[in-house]
């Protein structure tokens, strides 16, 4: 193991990891640019590089991008990645209170701990955990999506209607149904538009519902004066909140566990961690108003997925998510077929790659802590300058994912429709959660129904499914009970 550590701590390797991580943070911080896109684009470039260095570069991008998504989520209410939506719920209110620097500090620390913990698990238990993940079938995937959707109940608080939050989640799931039906191959609800054949991408929706609505509201605000009291607050260095470590630990464990399961883990992990955190918090009433505990759990959760997603990827050749799939492509390009051979025949490349991710987590921790106070000053930029610049990036980000102007119109449509729904008290976070988790839920449900020969009992049969139903119950029943109690009083 010592020789692998030596490889990682050579000057060339450290520089490669640092470049990859910083680039990842920048990419993750720009809505419309995803870690999958960056890793996918750079895989061919690593072909001419030393395989170990190439993999370290891509690993750095993956780690950096997962953290980077939280920066605009906190500062501009614009999640750079879908996994940062839960972070925006708590981060942006903190930013508006002049506590953006603390929110960024909590976010980077939680991301570091979650990421490091998951890589440690990958290093120590990968082959064992991969065998357990194989017991996870479509029925369990459906239940995992339901667990994520249970987060909707947490999003609704005493100020917003639970029923409206659930309706918003269902609207998102219905929008996700548009496109080609995977079962029959026929088109559903596309209204004859060829742009809708592949369905509605979540990125224009995410940009429209978060970034663009924010800009429309700022543009139409009564006053554009900057709150000068924020300048003093920004200059104050707040210490890390007490008791935050248990929320980070909770998120790290949850994220790693969910990351190991194949699927789009990071968003589900962030919301489930956020939900768990709200349940155990002593200051539950502060959730939704800028509670650093929520940021800690969500960020530890989504970064925990990084190492977790590589467990089935490296040991079984089953990618944990789309970024892991792109990374798997890099392994294959370099002649390394995922499986036990990676840990035997190619151990001199695989282990340095895994160890390099510890360094990558350290790099974004240093970058994040160093720049947090300066980044937080973004909140002080005059709205008349911020609005056109962010709007231009919103247009660019919507276009860049599929190179389609149609997506730009979709983004504007989501912004306008979302603003009306928001003013009527519907939760936009619930809507986007439904839109992202809808396809995962449908995939698990339809495949489960096929395996169960049309009987829904498949969703209750396995012992994992039974445990998951209990967890869903634990997540849903207490808030539903308190909601009904508050309605009665």
């Amino acid at each position: 193991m010592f020789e692998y550590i030596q490889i990682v701590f050579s000057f060339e390797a450290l520089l490669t990891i640092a470049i990859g991580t910083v680039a990842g943070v920048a990419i993750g911080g720009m809505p419309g640019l995803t870690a999958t896109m960056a890793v996918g684009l750079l895989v061919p470039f690593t072909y001419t590089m030393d395989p170990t260095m190439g993999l370290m570069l891509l690993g750095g991008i993956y780690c950096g991008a997962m953290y980077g998504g939280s920066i605009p989520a906190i500062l501009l209410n614009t999640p750079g990645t879908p996994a940062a939506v839960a972070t925006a719920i708590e981060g942006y209110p903190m930013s508006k209170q002049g506590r953006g620097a603390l929110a960024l500090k909590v976010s980077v620390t939680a991301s570091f701990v979650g990421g490091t913990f998951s890589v440690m698990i990958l290093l120590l238990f990968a082959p064992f955990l991969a065998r357990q993940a194989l017991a996870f079938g479509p029925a369990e995937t459906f239940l995992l999506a339901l667990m994520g959707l249970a987060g909707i109940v947490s999003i609704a608080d005493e100020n917003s209607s639970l029923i409206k939050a659930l309706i918003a989640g269902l609207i998102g799931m219905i929008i996700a149904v548009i496109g080609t039906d995977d079962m029959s191959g026929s088109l559903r609800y596309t209204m004859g538009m060829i742009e809708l054949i592949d369905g509605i991408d979540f990125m224009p929706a995410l940009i429209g519902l978060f970034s663009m609505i924010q800009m429309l509201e700022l543009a139409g605000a009564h006053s554009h004066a900057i709150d000068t009291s924020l300048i003093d607050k920004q200059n104050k260095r707040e210490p890390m909140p007490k008791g935050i470590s248990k929320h980070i630990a909770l998120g790290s464990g949850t994220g790693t566990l969910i990351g190991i399961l194949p699927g789009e883990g990071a968003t589900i992990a962030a919301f489930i961690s956020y939900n768990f955190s709200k349940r155990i918090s002593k200051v539950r009433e502060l959730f939704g108003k800028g509670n650093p505990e929520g940021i800690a759990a969500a960020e530890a959760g989504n970064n925990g997925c990084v190492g977790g997603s590589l467990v089935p990827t490296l040991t079984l050749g089953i990618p944990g998510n789309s970024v892991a799939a792109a990374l798997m492509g890099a392994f294959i390009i370099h002649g390394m077929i995922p499986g036990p051979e990676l840990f035997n025949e190619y151990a001199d490349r695989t282990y340095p790659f895994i160890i390099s991710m510890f360094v990558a987590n350290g790099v974004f921790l240093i970058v994040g802590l160093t720049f947090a106070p300066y980044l937080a000053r973004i909140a002080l930029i005059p709205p008349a300058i911020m609005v056109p610049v962010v709007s231009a990036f919103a247009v660019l980000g919507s276009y860049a994912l599929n190179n389609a102007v149609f997506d730009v119109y979709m983004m504007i449509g989501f912004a306008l429709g979302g603003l009306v729904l928001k003013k009527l008290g519907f939760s936009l976070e619930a809507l986007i959660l439904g839109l992202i988790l809808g396809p995962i839920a449908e995939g698990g449900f339809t495949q489960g129904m096929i395996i169960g020969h049309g009987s829904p009992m498949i969703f209750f049969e396995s012992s994992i499914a039974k445990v998951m139903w209990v967890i869903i119950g634990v997540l849903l029943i207490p808030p539903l009970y308190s909601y009904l109690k508050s309605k009665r009083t």
Partner: protein
Amino acid sequence: MAKKHVDRAVLALLIVMAVLLFNSTAGYTGIALKTSAKYVQFLAVSIGVLSVIQLGFNIFKEQPSVKLKLTDNMGRFVGLLICLVLFAAAFETLGFFIPAAIFIPVVAVLLGYRRPVVIGLTTVGVLIFVYLVFIQLLSVNLPGLEFLGGV
């Protein structure tokens, strides 16, 4: 328009959508009938039932008549929306750079900013950043570079 009336209209629309969505599953064929159709029916029934409950609360619960206000300054709000649509419309023919070079200063002025140097530097900064990061580093295929001579 009163907020409660818009709320009722939206909920009524959702109920109509739920019925249409449920009925649409009759058109599913083959294996989709036992799989995708069931999923869509579940969504349709759920949103329909919840919308009916919410509409019931809305009608039978006494609510103050508050006007639905999307924005405090309708002129700036609509102005930004129009600029966005024009930006998107110009995107395919003129590319990103020319419309963006017009969009950013126009919106800044529309929102009441009157410092030409700051506006100019910001616009140039954004364009250079996009060129370096999106075109040079990430090779994102933005339209309009051919218009400028093909980079």
